[in-house]
């Protein structure tokens, strides 16, 4: 009897042990290595190596890293890409041919860091099939070289960052709508199928950033005015108010650009802070309208002087991110609004909301308004009051972005529509990363609307479709 009990007990014990072993994972390397079992997917895990008494392993690993980081002070890695893309108008354009983009572009980007400074550069080399001239203009981004970045970041004091040189600058809360961001844009690149990063043109500036507990301050000084890479008529046909017609290379804009160093300068300031999860900011700018706005007595397009004051807030609301921004554009050369040649002062504001709507899907909406402050005075002084101008431009936008295929495919579409000026811009893009090196993308820029002078509808005959292939590299 006693024997039977013992056998039963042992059997039960073994069964329990066996049953437990069948479910239990084996220990990974580093966790009590002595207790490791042969790995088996259905088994409990092994302990990982190194949990106990493996300081030596940690030490040797740290040494490996030390030897890697000892290369500091050298250019540790260059990255970049080669990008080929072609775009085609899908409407007949009396001013331009069908092809609106055909280029091969290479970019090299690098950093060089020491303990208290970082130098950065990014240079593009471009073979553009659509331009005859290859002469280089680094400010206008013309020619076969475009220096995107060439700057040095210094941290001379704990609360101060200085970034000197050519750099891209962005602030504000809008989705592709910029109110207090008066840094140069390149809508030509944006509208004709270049990568979205080319929406921003670089600036040559001194940027001082101060960080305090209560508030942070950015001061950006631009010693020589950096205008937008504006519509000239060469690449995209546009509405010319003097001719009251949509024109192209037959009426290229050659404005007078304020270019005296330290006199035709710009200053942009942002003060900002975090309040809980909300970001609050105030802005001020002194400089010029960034694209040709108005004209001189001799009908040459000009960049009138401009001051802008504004504020923004952004933070979590109703499971998404809400944003609001306002800016007052003070048209300094005609504050009374009497000149027909100078833009009115304007009040611009927007509200936006973005949230997740399903797995890997984001949706966003915006409302934007632009109001002329002395509209009656301005309209009464128009010499040719034939055009139907509006005091206010209303604009709404809706965006949807979907990631798919393990986030290697990005589909995004944003539509802008002005209900009172009846023009529309649809931008749809698809981007697929074949692997870590190759990427293909394509998209549509469609403009519509009956008016020749609408901000979007003037480009309707530039509506286009494009494709691109990019190979990234890293050294």
């Amino acid at each position, binding site marked *: 009897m006693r024997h039977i009990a013992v056998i039963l007990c042992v059997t039960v014990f073994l069964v329990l042990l066996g049953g437990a072993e069948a479910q*239990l994972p084996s220990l990974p390397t580093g966790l009590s290595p002595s207790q490791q079992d042969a790995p088996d997917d259905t088994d*409990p895990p092994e302990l990982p190596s190194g949990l106990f008494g493996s300081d030596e392993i940690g030490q040797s690993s740290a040494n490996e*890293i030390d030897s890697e980081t000892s290369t500091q002070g050298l250019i540790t890695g260059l990255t970049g890409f080669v990008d080929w893309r072609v775009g085609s108008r899908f409407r007949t354009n009396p001013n331009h041919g069908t092809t609106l983009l055909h280029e091969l572009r290479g970019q090299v*980007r690098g950093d060089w860091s020491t303990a208290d400074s970082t130098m950065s550069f990014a240079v593009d080399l471009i073979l553009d099939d659509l331009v005859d001239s290859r002469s280089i203009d680094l400010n206008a981004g013309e020619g076969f070289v475009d220096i995107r970045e060439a700057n040095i970041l210094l941290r001379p004091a704990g609360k101060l960052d200085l970034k000197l040189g050519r750099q891209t600058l962005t602030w504000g809360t809008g989705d592709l709508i910029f109110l207090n961001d008066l840094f140069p844009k390149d809508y030509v690149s944006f509208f004709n199928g270049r990568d979205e990063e080319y929406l921003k043109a670089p600036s040559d500036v001194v940027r001082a*950033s101060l960080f305090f507990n209560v508030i942070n301050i950015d001061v950006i000084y631009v010693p020589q005015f950096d205008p937008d890479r504006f519509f000239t008529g060469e690449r995209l046909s546009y509405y010319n108010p003097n001719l009251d017609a949509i024109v192209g290379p037959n009426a290229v804009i050659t404005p007078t650009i304020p270019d005296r160093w330290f006199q035709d300068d710009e200053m942009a300031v942002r003060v900002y802070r975090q309040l809980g999860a909300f970001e609050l900011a105030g802005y001020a700018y002194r400089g010029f309208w960034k694209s040709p706005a108005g004209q001189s007595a001799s009908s040459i397009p000009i960049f009138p002087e401009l001051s802008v004051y504004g504020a923004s807030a952004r933070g979590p609301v109703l499971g998404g*991110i809400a944003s609001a921004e306002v800016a007052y554009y003070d048209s300094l050369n005609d504050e009374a609004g009497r000149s027909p040649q100078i833009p009115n002062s304007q009040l611009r504001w927007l509200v936006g909301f973005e949230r*997740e709507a399903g797995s890997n899907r984001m949706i966003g909406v915006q409302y934007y308004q632009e109001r002329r402050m002395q509209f009656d005075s301005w309209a009464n002084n128009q010499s040719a009051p034939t055009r139907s101008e509006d005091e206010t431009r209303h604009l709404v936008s809706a965006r949807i972005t979907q990631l798919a295929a393990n986030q290697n495919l990005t589909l995004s579409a944003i539509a802008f529509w002005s209900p009172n000026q009846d023009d529309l811009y649809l931008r749809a893009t698809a981007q697929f990363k074949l692997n*870590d090196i190759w990427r293909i993308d394509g998209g549509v820029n469609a403009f519509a609307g009956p008016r020749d002078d609408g901000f979007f509808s003037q480009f309707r005959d530039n509506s286009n479709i494009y494709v691109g292939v990019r190979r990234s*590299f890293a050294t």
Partner: protein
Amino acid sequence: MNALTKILIAGAAILGVPTAAAAQEIDVETIVHNASAQAYYQGENGRARARMTIVDSQDRERIREFTILRTDVGNEDNGDQKFFVLFSRPADVNGTSFLVWKNTQSDDDRWLYLPALDLVRRIAASDERTSFVGSHFFYEDISGRSPVEDDHELVETTDLYFVVESRPRDPGAAEFVRYRSYIHRESFVPVRIDYYDADDTVYRSYNALEVETHDGYPTVIASEIVDSRTGGRTLLRFEDVSYDIDLPEGVFQERYLRNPPRALLGQQ
């Protein structure tokens, strides 16, 4: 209880051999609290360089490399945290940085910085159980799932493990019905986590593969997520792990999002 049993238990206690009686003294909430603290809250802060190898069902590999900085708000285990991530590979995301304020009581705050545009974008995503940078790791696997989001039950105590079953308190907010964690009894390292779907089938597993001790803290330096539905897996390996480092004020702010602290990140 007779004298012999008492002596045996006392001996086992002295020798550090876990006994059923000793195991039952620790309640499941303490186990999951300790496991979460072990996996995500060691030290006051930490830094590591990470390399993810994402393998799809056809064995094609993609690489993600980034440096991650972490600080615990108020140095409290299982409380709020802040993370800073700077990507270096693949080449097209080099210099992209990512800031997360992990809030245990509300949605996380996330910011993404795109260097080519100098754009600080606020990320509205609230779903923690979506892929992190296209890998099989979810955001939550990187920053931790709060123990209070699930109900836990200690289903078994083995020589090596506390085996804990967890079910989401809000079933609509998770794609799993339950998950089973094998938590190493001595270190509280979660060694394996199996996620079960509505058919009670394991479709996703986390495995700790290798542990090293850095600055006195046992650290999982190699781990993987295996997704048996898609047939893919991601290996995550940490290097250059350190804890309780000197973090200047403001690292987890827009300042360093725009101009990452390279010296701190070991990317000088």
